């Protein structure tokens, strides 16, 4: 079924999806496969992979070594995304831990999976029952077993390689094997696991959205070690693969189309969304079902700015929870030089992770953690450090080599709990290129996270000892991980939540808000696979609703 386009640029479809990231794209593809007309409205531009690779290679050394994963991606001047080099001030951060919430996300066709690391973790079953099990946080209205079939479908859709040996799985509760077995480890992953595993840290393979053989029109991974910020060969899953598959099934994708308003009828059903095209001309897309899957910042921003007479506090916001309960895995890093060469940087950017502290009774008191062994080449940081020593000649050559092959960077994630005061609101003073309000975010972490930091820091010191670490350092303030969650929180009670277990808005029977926003608990693992699984569950719900309409 094709989207109807009118002479004035307006459109009509069975399903209108706002956002072309992994979640929106998966839903669009499924519904197109079910013979529904589907329109995707994407605020940002289309990207050319080769150009983005060139942009990365031409960023200056300081930006590359500082992990500037944003500047290489072209932006529409009408749909700003955060930039830090230099800061563009699109998002205003306040609150005690505002500085730990500098999120980097992409507004373009295909979304932020252009620069993810493709880590495809599942939540643990207990992560869905944090209140019931540990007396903290919130419980989900659905269980792990409700979502498990969708995890399987998401792994299939994204072409995940993961460990099929249960001893290496986290969690082990699976109804199907991974589509492909684990990505084989390089020397560094193997040695680190050999050294830390006798001490209970449980280094396991990271399930990854890439493979060492061609898969579903993707080439095999050749270990270009540049998953972030851009896989140069398209071996890593990103949503552009699904967007292209969806387009092949008839989905219409309109880039540089910024949705700014949502129309509702007397029954509070959504009747249309309104968007500006690249020439700032307004248009309207009518439909039977609507999915807003921008991300956990842009979705609540849109819902709030789309407030209308019937929904004065914002669309889907009778609970006043839209924009609240914002979460991200609070991150920090541990770096050191190991006494033996580990040669990190051979293969994909992340292949192993320490999950020994992912769960335990302690979670009633403080945050769990996971410790990723970053496998990103250490040449850049090693060079930065060696140059600071003022070396020249062969001494400099040797020092860079020494620091590169002995260097270790561990990326630690902590679990915040949902808190209503961690909130996105609309700026009263700052406007984007279309004159739409920019997001303001207040963010404060409680002692649950800080105690989790202390526990993790102690574990890291022990790990450092195991490697006879030199120049052992732990960052003392927290960084963002771009895993935004919670801002359209899921629950069974419409009074204190925004969506139900299918990500359908409590307030609007034909509006779904899937992605990271609905997640009531963060766990400590990357959120994308859970977002994708929720997206596919949402897709079933949309499909059933359209069939019964």
């Amino acid at each position, binding site marked *: 079924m094709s989207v109807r386009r009118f002479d004035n640029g307006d459109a009509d479809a069975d399903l209108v999806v706002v956002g072309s990231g992994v979640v929106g794209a998966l839903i669009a593809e499924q519904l197109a496969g079910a013979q529904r007309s589907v329109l995707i409205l994407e605020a940002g531009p289309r990207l050319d992979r080769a150009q983005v690779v060139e942009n990365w290679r031409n960023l200056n*050394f300081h930006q590359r070594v500082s992990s500037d994963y944003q500047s290489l991606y072209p932006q529409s001047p009408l749909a700003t995304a955060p930039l830090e080099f230099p800061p563009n001030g699109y998002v205003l951060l306040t609150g005690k831990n505002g500085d730990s919430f500098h999120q980097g996300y992409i507004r373009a066709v295909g979304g932020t999976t252009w620069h993810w690391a493709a880590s495809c973790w599942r939540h643990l079953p207990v992560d869905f029952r944090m209140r019931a099990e540990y007396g903290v946080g919130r419980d989900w209205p659905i269980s792990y077993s409700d979502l498990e079939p969708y995890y399987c479908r998401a792994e299939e859709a994204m072409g995940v390689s993961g460990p099929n040996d249960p001893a290496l799985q986290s969690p082990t509760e699976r109804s199907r094997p991974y589509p492909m077995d684990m990505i084989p480890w390089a020397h560094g992953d193997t040695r680190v696991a050999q050294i830390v595993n006798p001490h209970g840290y449980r280094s396991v393979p990271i399930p990854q959205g890439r493979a060492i053989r061609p898969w579903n029109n993707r080439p095999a991974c050749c270990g270009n070690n540049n998953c972030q910020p851009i896989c140069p060969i398209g071996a890593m899953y990103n949503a552009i693969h699904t967007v292209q598959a969806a387009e092949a099934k008839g989905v219409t994708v309109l880039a540089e189309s910024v949705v700014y308003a949502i129309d509702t009828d007397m029954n509070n059903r959504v009747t249309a969304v309104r968007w500006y095209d690249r020439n700032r001309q307004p248009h309207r897309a009518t439909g039977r079902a609507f999915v807003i899957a921008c991300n956990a910042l842009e979705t609540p921003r849109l819902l709030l700015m789309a407030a209308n007479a019937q929904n004065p506090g914002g669309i889907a916001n009778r609970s006043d929870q839209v924009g609240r309960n914002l979460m991200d895995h609070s991150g920090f890093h541990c770096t050191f030089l190991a006494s033996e060469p580990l040669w990190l940087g051979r293969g994909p950017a992340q292949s192993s992770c320490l999950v020994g502290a992912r769960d335990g009774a302690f979670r009633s008191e403080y945050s769990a953690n996971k410790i990723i062994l970053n496998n990103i080449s250490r*040449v850049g940081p090693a060079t930065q450090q060696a140059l600071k020593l003022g070396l*020249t*000649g062969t001494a400099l050559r040797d020092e860079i080599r020494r620091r*590169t092959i002995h260097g270790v960077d561990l990326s630690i994630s902590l679990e915040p709990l949902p808190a209503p005061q961690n909130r996105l609101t609309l700026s009263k003073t700052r406007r984007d290129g279309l004159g739409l309000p920019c997001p303001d975010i207040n963010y404060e972490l409680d002692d649950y996270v800080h105690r989790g930091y202390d526990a993790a820091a102690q574990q890291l010191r022990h790990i*450092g000892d195991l490697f006879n670490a030199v120049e052992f350092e732990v960052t003392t303030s927290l960084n963002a991980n771009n895993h935004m969650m919670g801002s359209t929180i899921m629950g069974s009670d419409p009074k204190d939540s925004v969506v139900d277990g299918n990500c359908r808005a409590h307030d609007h029977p034909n509006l779904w808000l899937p992605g990271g926003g609905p997640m009531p608990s963060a766990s400590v693992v990357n959120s994308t696979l859970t977002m994708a699984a929720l997206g596919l569950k949402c897709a079933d719900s949309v499909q059933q609703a359209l069939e019964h309409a």
Partner: protein
Amino acid sequence: MTHTYSVTLHRRREVLALVPAAALCFWLRETTLAANPVATPPDAFVLLSTLLTGFPDVYPDLASRLREALLNVVPATSQAVARLIPIGLQASDDSTLMMTAREAGLGEAALALVAAWYTGTVGSGTHTEVVAYADALMYRTVADGLAPPTYALGGPAWWIAAPPPAGVSPPMAEPVRTGTRPARRGNPS
């Protein structure tokens, strides 16, 4: 990465010998008085670079780009580098070169030149020019075991092979300490 031209250290004196004394005097006077890097004979700049970087075969085309970028982006450093060249011609190795350079107030310029060669970026802050990516010398320090990111050392799963020998001594032991680095920006996972 195939370089068809190289100046090796053992050729250095040979090249020096080929520079006529009068021309050398003229060039030294010009570079000293006018501090005009464009007037620097290319071989002399390459020779200075080989001494400072420890790579006897730096890429001449890159040397030209780098020298031009120095002039465009950091003209003061460019002038200082021009003054380094006669020092480089007299020095037997990078240590003596640096000692003399520091005495002449040119130590920072020498290190800036080294940083440009190793990182491929000239300048700092927002005022920079990228002259090299894969050819930045930092990648050559580990080229036997790591490709510059975006490139690869082989086909699928090449990385499971054993890495090459270290070839350098391990890091010097020191007491374990907890640093106070600020948080990073970016680095999503």
